């Protein structure tokens, strides 16, 4: 999953239906240009590029995510200035268990790009991108609340939905669907 170095394009082996191949040629070449540019600017950061259903996912080295996001936002050829969404996920694998997914959008070229960083259970820290997009604060709080990923640099990293005294992270795969009895104290009469 995680290449040590180098850059490979892997294409999933499923059959694409024609409707999702309707992307115009220039849009596709624009994304290719962005990937090439990232590769030359950050040769060590870009670990892998994947394509599925005409959506590009780039795996980025965790330490460089803020620099890469800042570059993608400001570079005149990229201009991914809008953070659509940020979320975490639990792959439940022995290593690289957690991932943080950034869904970027470019208001200028109307393209989407997905970035992904991996983190481990032993080291739950991921740099925060609030310095790039101020609006990343709440999604990062949500990812912290649901999965326990700690975003270094987020000024207000509290729980988003669950009460502060709650000890578990509900979207982890080892958290049972029914919940844990007595984990949320009921208010006393």
């Amino acid at each position, binding site marked *: 999953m995680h290449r040590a170095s180098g850059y490979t394009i892997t294409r*999933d082996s*499923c*059959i*694409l*239906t*024609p*409707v*999702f191949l309707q992307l115009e040629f220039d849009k596709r070449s624009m994304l290719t240009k962005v990937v090439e540019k990232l590769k030359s600017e950050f040769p060590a950061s870009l670990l892998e590029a994947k394509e*599925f*259903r005409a*959506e590009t*996912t780039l795996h980025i080295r965790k330490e460089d995510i803020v620099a890469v996001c800042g570059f993608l936002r400001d570079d005149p050829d990229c201009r991914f*200035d*809008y*953070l*659509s*969404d940020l*979320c975490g*996920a*639990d792959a439940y694998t022995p290593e690289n268990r957690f991932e943080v*997914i950034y*869904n970027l959008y470019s*208001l200028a070229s*109307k393209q*989407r790009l*997905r970035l992904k960083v991996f983190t481990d259970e032993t080291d739950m820290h991921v740099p925060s991108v609030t310095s790039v*997009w*101020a*609006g*990343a*604060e*709440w*999604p990062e709080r*949500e990812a912290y609340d*649901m999965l326990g990923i700690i975003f270094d640099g987020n000024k207000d990293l509290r*729980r*988003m*939905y*669950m*009460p502060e005294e709650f000890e578990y992270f*509900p*979207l982890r795969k080892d*958290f049972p*669907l029914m919940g844990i009895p007595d984990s949320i104290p009921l208010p006393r009469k």
Partner: protein
Amino acid sequence: MDPVYDVEPKKSKILQALEDKDTSAQFTDPLENEMIINMGPQHPATHGVLRLLIKLDGETVVTSVPELGYLHRGYEKLAENCSYHEFIPHTDRLDYISPLMNNTAYVLAVEKLLGVETPCRAQFIRVIISELARISSHLLAVGALGLDIGAVTVFMWTFREREKLYDIFENLTGARFTTSYTRIGGISQDMTDATKQMIQDFIDQFPAKLAECESLLNRNKIFIGRTDGVGVMSRENAIAMGFSGPNLRASGVDHDIRRSNPYLVYDELDFNVPVYNDGDSLARYYVRVNEMKESTNIVQQALDKIPAGPVHAFEPKKVLPKKERVYTKMEELIHDFMIINFGVDPPVGEVYHAVEGSKGELGFYIQSKGEGHPWRLKIRSPSFMNLQSLPLLLQGRMISDVVAIIGSIDPVMGEADK
């Protein structure tokens, strides 16, 4: 036994000054004038269970902290434990003002993952229901904004129109609110001619009714005074904070997913995207009113262009078969059994699909490991991202502007809390 205090409770400086009849006393300590107000979670003007902690200096808002989670039901966790079809009813409960929009957005994401294309008729019907849901949602937004700042009549008039819409939804889907109308690869049942006539009747009379509501507000001095220049969001901030939908377009950003990344049959329809540059509550109101007119226009075009034909894709392993065929045909019985018990068989991969929802960019991010249920499903809810900017908009405004700003952002807590 009386409790023992370590520190003698200090007598307030103001009280001391009053007792001493000291008229020259001055209070430079900021805490003397400041007050913290707790608004919600049970408050009619917060549009649900939003809780706001507002720090006031006199009547001016210094800072505010929104607290979410009072309606958190854990839909993302539930989604990981039910099949793709089973999750459709849950999407009704996200943005409960426009459930048809959520149904459409969710199945579009799943169809993108599965690689299923819906027949043309079903796509037109989805456009019609999305736009009707948008009208319904904007009517509530406009009416509730009026109600929040004292114009009660508008609320009554917009709800009269919404009632007609709910009659249409009941006729079309069998339910007023919890519609669960769409299916993977199609819709639950075809639109009848009677329903089509109801929709036609509605949009024939709607522009005049909307003009009536507008005439109550557009030249209303109190309404304009309460919203003009209130809660200004600059273009740069709107983009950085992830504003979307009518709120983003009120800040001068010409971005509408229906036009920039067309889905369904929006590229065959002709419509304008209203954009205002002021970024205040009044601009957000105007964007919504004009969007309703455009939606009426879109529904009319879709009704004119809608072709005859099937409303289900021919994908036996992915699309639920018709009940009468399940009972009479062997093949369909097997497929129905497999889809209900084990779910559809998606490829391994991840997709993000966003639609222009009534509140903004409504996206579903799905990770699939090839199982019948999603491995991870993230709902990108516009209300959640829009609410994030609330402290920025409230800062420095008067306490009475708080309701005017919340109303103009139009949050729905079912969606913000998921």
